């Protein structure tokens, strides 16, 4: 039998039982739409992660983070001074594959302008000039901090775009350089203003005149930065809070290094580890965290999302398949006589088999198409809920995959009814009332 004929018979049968067929499609519709939505969502997260990674700094960056020392070394863990400026100095001097070292301490304090009303509490960070490269900064006006600023411990600051706009609303960035702000009630000269950092999505939204504060902004900390020289931070701002610390022994809050050439990445890590081992007297209280680690962590969470979404979709598809099988079995017992007549006029068993199977696939395929429509709606809704940088991305392969699964569900659930129908004995079927 010509498959087109089987399809047209199937369509007629579906048209004759629209409501029943729609009900039996429901599981497939749900399965397909949730599968597509999940894929779009995880795709969006991946995309967001990728852009975030690109804009937050490349694979060259390595963070040195604190870690619980292993139990063997627990007893003499307090021999280690922890992460200090000495680590940074040592790495800068001895680790030749490392191009930049950025130690950082910070203080949550009041930032205001003279006579400018209530001060904001902001995190003020003491950094070295290397932070410019490691933080991937761009200066919109003025300059960044220089070694001389560190040397002199001068009271100068570089502020982020958001801070500048907040303190001097409506004033062009160029004119902000040279003004004075009060940090912890001490005057600091603004020597530079950083560029506005934003993702493509945000930039597009801003240009379109839309304000949206939805979701988590990866550049928030950069745009809200108030950067001062490390030494100034220590002597002027922190000494009161931590009087017993010296510049050498004070614990760093973050220590980030940049590998000069990615080809030497592993050697560079080895160098850093060796230097830190000596400085920390063999106590393994630090960990080197690469951006690849971050990426892997995000990857694994994306995978988990995809898996759970996929599982949900799979369950829906299985349930949908059972629904179709159910309806096909019901349809067959209604059509025993029809099948008998078809057999009597010369249909082969395999013609009947194909007819039922194709009908079942048609139902699931139509369900799949409806599922695509439903998923478009679902994705629209998700677009309004999901964080801006993780906007769901609909890809053709998601649609193909989902429809493929729908068809497979129809095929599998049609096999048994089709086999059952083709096994009907024509004589019994013709007598069937």
């Amino acid at each position, binding site marked *: *039998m*010509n498959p087109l*004929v089987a399809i047209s018979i199937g369509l*007629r049968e579906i048209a*004759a039982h629209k409501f029943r067929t729609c009900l039996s499609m429901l599981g497939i519709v749900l399965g397909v739409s949730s599968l597509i939505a999940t894929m779009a969502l995880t795709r969006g997260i991946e995309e967001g992660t990728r852009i975030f990674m690109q804009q937050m700094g490349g694979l060259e960056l390595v963070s040195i983070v604190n870690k619980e020392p292993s139990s063997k070394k627990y007893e003499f863990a307090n021999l280690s001074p922890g992460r200090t400026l000495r680590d940074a100095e040592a790495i800068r001097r001895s680790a030749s594959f490392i191009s930049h070292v950025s130690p950082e301490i910070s203080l949550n304090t009041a930032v205001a302008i003279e006579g400018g009303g209530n001060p904001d509490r902001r995190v003020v960070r003491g950094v070295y000039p290397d932070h410019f490269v490691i933080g991937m900064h761009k200066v919109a006006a003025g300059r960044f901090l220089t070694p001389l600023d560190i040397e002199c411990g001068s009271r100068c600051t570089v502020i982020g775009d958001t801070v500048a706009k907040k303190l001097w609303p409506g004033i062009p960035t160029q004119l902000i350089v040279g003004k004075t702000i009060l940090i912890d009630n001490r005057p600091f000269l603004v020597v530079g203003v950083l560029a506005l950092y934003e993702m493509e999505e945000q930039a597009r939204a801003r240009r379109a005149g839309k304000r949206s504060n939805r979701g988590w902004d990866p550049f928030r900390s950069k745009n809200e930065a108030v950067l001062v020289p490390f030494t100034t931070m220590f002597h002027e701002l922190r000494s009161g809070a931590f009087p017993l610390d010296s510049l050498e022994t004070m614990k760093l809050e973050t220590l980030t290094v940049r590998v000069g050439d990615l080809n030497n990445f592993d050697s560079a890590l080895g160098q850093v580890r060796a230097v830190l081992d000596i400085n920390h007297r063999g106590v393994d209280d630090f960990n080197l965290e690469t951006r690849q680690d971050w990426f892997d962590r995000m990857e694994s969470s994306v995978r988990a999302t995809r898996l759970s979404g996929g599982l949900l979709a799979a369950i829906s598809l299985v349930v949908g398949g059972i629904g179709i099988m159910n309806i096909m079995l019901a349809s067959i017992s209604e059509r025993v*006589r*029809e099948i*008998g*007549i*078809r*057999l*009597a*006029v*010369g*249909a*082969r*068993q*395999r*013609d009947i088999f194909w007819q039922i199977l194709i009908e079942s696939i048609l139902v699931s395929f139509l369900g799949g198409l409806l599922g695509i429509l439903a998923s478009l709606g679902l994705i629209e809704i998700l677009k309004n809920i999901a964080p801006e940088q993780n906007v769901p991305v609909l890809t053709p392969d998601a649609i193909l995959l989902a429809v493929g699964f729908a068809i497979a569900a129809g095929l599998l659930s049609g096999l048994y009814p089709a086999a059952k129908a083709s096994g009907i004995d*024509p*004589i019994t079927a*013709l007598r069937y009332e």
Partner: protein
Amino acid sequence: MSLIHLEGLSKVYRVGDQEIRALDEVNLRIEEGEFIAIIGSSGSGKSTLMHLLGCLDTPTAGRMEICGKNLTKASNDELARMRNREIGFVFQAFNLLPKLDVVSNIALPLIYAGVPSHERLNRAKKVAADVGLGDRLANRPPQLSGGQCQRVAIARALVNNPRILFGDEPTGNLDSATGRMILEMFDALHASGKTVVLVTHDPAIAARSRRVIEICDGRITREYAP
């Protein structure tokens, strides 16, 4: 060479432990162009014989040749092919598909013969006109009278131009006037060269044939010309 040739044909059904010999070593030859009636009371085995002749079933024992083909141990596909190409059925209950219109019902066997769709339609229309239903093509069976339904069934049986035409109590559901008309159609078909086999319990109908075979308890008990 006979069109239908049966030798020692038996059909045994098993119901639980019981063996039912529905047909018991039947020998029969039917030549091309004959008009035969198989007559018997209910349970005599005439239906079983017709199912075997109509390639709806296979025998338990014996030999069966139809149109020169040995069908004793035929596969389901071979039987389906015979039903499609060589045999046309007309049933008591018409057995039309109520969801299809007249043309599609008539064209049904052509689907399984692999005939392309426009040719299916043309041939079905032509046969419909032959049985006098040329103006009823778009109607569906529930809108037709019994006689019209049976004419659709005859048209369907004829559409693939088979050599043998079976009628299983073809007038059983019709009033006598309509029944006569249907039987006249069978007469005409016989006259045009078809081999016609009627299965009935009614001697009056059997009397229209040229040769009557009487079956009782699975055996041919009598054979006569009316």
